[in-house]
């Protein structure tokens, strides 16, 4: 546990020692902020138009659901932006150690490969949570001026973090394969994108393949979370996915160690 926290602390500190972390944070906040503004203004406009219409025709105004019209699509949006951001976080997690030669320190210290990988994974996840903080602030605005349901927001974040964990474990694995951060980032994008779009393919696939593709697709499992449903099946999927990524990373560094 002490070794894991040593790795975690170092990794987390390193994120904020490098300018990349701030660039990513700024970019992520700007993008999610812009989309929040766009969703919010179109929602307000729609509600406003409806109010005018209802006055004209002397009908009761429609009840506009913030959760359905704003929060749900916004979560989709954050998930998509995360897809492109997380490879930038995971790219350096292991490649950097290889490039600097610090793997030699890690492997000759009295810690296990599992402790190294788990510490790094948790640091990546913690940084992702930091990235999500500004979006929580945006959601808080909605609660300040309206009365959205709380559960869908909570389940949305649970979904994001679980999905993020999956992406991070996969990105970490890819990062163990190369000492080049750029390659690690591109590999991360490609893999994330593939897992993302695979669900679309299911609509063209035959009856046997379709459910499989649907199951593998990382996006399908997020759907329920965005709608406020916490389903153990989807939690299990993401946890299984993360464990697979961690396991592959372990196997990768153990075999690299053998060949080194």
């Amino acid at each position, binding site marked *: 546990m*002490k*070794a894991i*926290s*040593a*790795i975690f*602390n*170092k990794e987390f*500190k*390193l994120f904020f*020692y*490098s300018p990349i972390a701030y660039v990513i944070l700024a970019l992520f906040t700007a993008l999610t902020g812009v989309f929040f503004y766009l969703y919010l203004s179109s929602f307000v406009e729609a509600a406003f138009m409806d109010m005018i219409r209802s006055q004209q025709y002397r009908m009761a105004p429609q009840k506009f659901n913030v959760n359905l019209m704003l929060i749900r699509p916004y979560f989709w949006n954050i998930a998509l932006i995360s897809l492109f951001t997380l490879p930038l976080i995971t790219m350096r997690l292991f490649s950097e150690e290889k490039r*600097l*030669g*610090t*793997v*030699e*320190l*890690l*492997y*000759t*210290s*009295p*810690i*296990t490969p599992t402790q190294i990988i788990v510490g790094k994974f948790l640091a990546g996840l913690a940084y992702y949570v930091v990235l999500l903080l500004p979006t929580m602030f945006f959601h808080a605005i909605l609660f300040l001026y309206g009365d959205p349901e709380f559960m869908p927001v909570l389940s949305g974040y649970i979904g994001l973090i679980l999905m993020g964990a999956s992406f991070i474990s996969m990105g970490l694995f890819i990062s163990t394969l190369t000492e080049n951060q750029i390659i690690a980032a591109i590999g991360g994008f490609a893999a994330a994108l593939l897992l993302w779009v695979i669900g679309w393919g299911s609509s063209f696939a035959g009856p046997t393949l379709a459910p499989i593709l649907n199951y593998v697709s990382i996006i399908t499992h997020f759907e329920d979370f965005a709608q406020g449903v916490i389903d153990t099946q989807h939690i299990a999927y993401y946890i299984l996915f993360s464990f697979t990524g961690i396991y592959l990373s372990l196997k990768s560094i153990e075999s690299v*160690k*053998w060949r*080194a």
Partner: protein
Amino acid sequence: MIDVEGLTRYYGEKRAISDVSFHVNKGEILGLLGPNAAGKTTTMRILTCYMPPTSGSATVGGYDIFEQSMDVRRITGYLPENPPLYTELTVDDYLLFVAQLKGIEKSRLKSEIDTVIEKAALGDVRHRIIGKLSKGYKQRVGLAQSLLNNPQIIILDEPTVGLDPKQIIEIRELIKNLRGDHTVILSSHILPEVEQTCERVVIINEGRVVAEDTPENLTNRLRGSERIIMQVEGSEETVKKTLQPIADIQNITVKPENNGLVRVEVESDKDVRKELANAVVKNGLGLLELTVDRFTLEDIFLHLTTKEEEVA
């Protein structure tokens, strides 16, 4: 304290070391000497459990490198060839991280770090970012890291590379002070370094151990063909004619120097200083200087390694 038995390591098809065996006593400083690509780093990486050997075995501090690798790593401090530094961290933060990796308890962290900072003379730079330090200071940070937790065994891969002469002397002093309390292996291809700091030397060439002894014994082994160097007043031919008849001379070279002097180098397995001096004086030549040139480790090193090449 360290027992190495028949270590062999292949990189793919290429054999980096073959059948390397040696032994290091407790409290001793052992020099691992060899030219580039001899297999020094490979040997050290195996001993520090960075990678396994293809065959052979070794124990470090009584622990087997395969079976008890965690214990080996716990009692060993290691400075790799390229100091493993996080260039974005400060010296303090870096040492804190390594100290935590080594499992030092919280209460001892600060004092442990202060100790190695003092030993490696890093006090002035402890709050600076490692990436901005000079190469010599980076090397010292790497050295400081290897001393954390006062390890029984310290393995240093070319510890003085990139240091200026003053720093080299300081680091050598530091290493010498480790004697007794720590068992040290250091590698080098700089021979005087090994001669000065080590009690025993293992010479390794093309992956094989070619000699293992104390620096003095290694020197004595080649004593047989000691060199005598003289500076004589006289012409090249007369000097040659005068000295050549002396018995027991294996080899003689005479080179003219400025202002009518010649430099004579004589190789012999007997002490022929008296005969040489007498012959010079008897023939009316001026003897200005006569010295015995002991073979340095450098010569032995070259001798052993070139011999090995001839065999190959």
